[in-house]
């Protein structure tokens, strides 16, 4: 048995040596908020936090992460960033949203008022197949308390 610390809970799971963290979270622990997109480390849909650092769980072995603190999207509840994603329409189909939010969570923890360059560098780790990048960027800025320019077509 392998001990995992997920979202504040200790879980004992049977893990094969070749299992990736993404598969363990979804298939063994039922935490299906973690999405598997490319399974190649490119899209970022599987992003989770390990000791607060975002990693792509599809290219990390579960055994590598044992005994470390894992946070999945199920571990976040009504955070200001999550609310900002709703308020700014920072999602369309929603497939990438968990990864986007977890990645941005670390950015705002490290840099509460991130610059445009910091946001770009951080968020270029995550692809949005709906190309909703503008809403995602606005959500991150809103959560950071950064003043947002009026959107085209907005009413004052």
């Amino acid at each position: 048995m392998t001990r995992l610390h997920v979202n504040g809970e200790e879980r004992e799971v049977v893990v094969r040596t070749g299992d990736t963290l993404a598969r363990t979270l979804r298939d063994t622990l039922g935490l299906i908020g973690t999405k598997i997109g490319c399974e190649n480390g490119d899209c970022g849909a599987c992003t989770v936090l390990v000791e607060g650092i975002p990693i792509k769980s599809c290219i990390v072995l579960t055994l590598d992460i044992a005994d470390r603190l894992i946070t999945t999207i199920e571990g976040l509840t009504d955070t200001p960033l999550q609310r900002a994603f709703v308020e700014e329409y920072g999602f369309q189909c929603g497939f990438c949203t968990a990864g986007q939010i977890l990645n941005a969570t670390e950015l705002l923890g490290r840099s509460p008022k991130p610059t445009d360059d910091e946001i770009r560098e951080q968020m270029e780790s995550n692809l949005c197949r709906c190309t909703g990048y503008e809403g995602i960027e606005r959500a991150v800025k809103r959560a950071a308390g950064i003043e947002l320019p009026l959107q085209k077509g907005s009413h004052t």
Partner: protein
Amino acid sequence: MILEDVRYYQPETIREAVDAYREAAAEGLSVHYMGGGTEITTHARDGKLAPGALIDIKRIPEANGISRGSGVIRFGAAVTLTRIADSGDVPLLSATARRIADRTTRNSITLGGNIAGMLPYREAVLAFLIYGGTFEVTGPEGTRTAAARELFDRRVRLEDGEFIVALSIPESASTAPWYYTRRERDGRVDYPLVTFAAGLVRDAVAFAVAGAFLAPIAFSVPAAGVTRDVVVNELKALGLKYRTDMRGSAEYRRALTERACRDALDALGKGAQ
């Protein structure tokens, strides 16, 4: 499960790592040392790699940390590229690390893993080639130190069972003039068409290039009287073949590389000579 029936070791000392290698190799397993494991998992998924045993070196203290002493800055092979990018200890190295993959992936990719990996780019080695860095490697026959330009000839020339423990670079690299550019076809997060780095090292200008050829290369020319033509001719004299792939033709890579030669000299204050 991407990896089938792989044996996984997590040694906490160099001795344990070497013993694990001996044990697995003696059983006929295909043994790989592992840092972040990003390349191993992706290549395994593609069927390009089927390791029988993985030895994860991240828990070995000597392979971790960034430290200064005896005139060098020492980077553990298991230090992540994010940490190196954010450290700023050697600006050229940090700039190079910051453009490899994306930030989230850099949180997993390690310095040693990038340099010893299967992909042909291995950009993290460029600063060590330019500034006369050294590799600290260990294996069944013991630990040795080797100059980067000797040990890295297109790839790291390790003996059977060896792995990289750390890399060092002279402390003078933290303030030496440098130039860096990276050209991609499809935006920042992509493999490079050309990654070109240069630095002033004593009385020479040192250059290192990745992406343009089958593997990273390095060369130096005397700083006195250097011109773009001198650099381009030196590059041509190496007799290397530019790569053609889906991202760009050999001719395009050649043009980008030769343009970078000129830009590097301009940036290093050698352009007017």
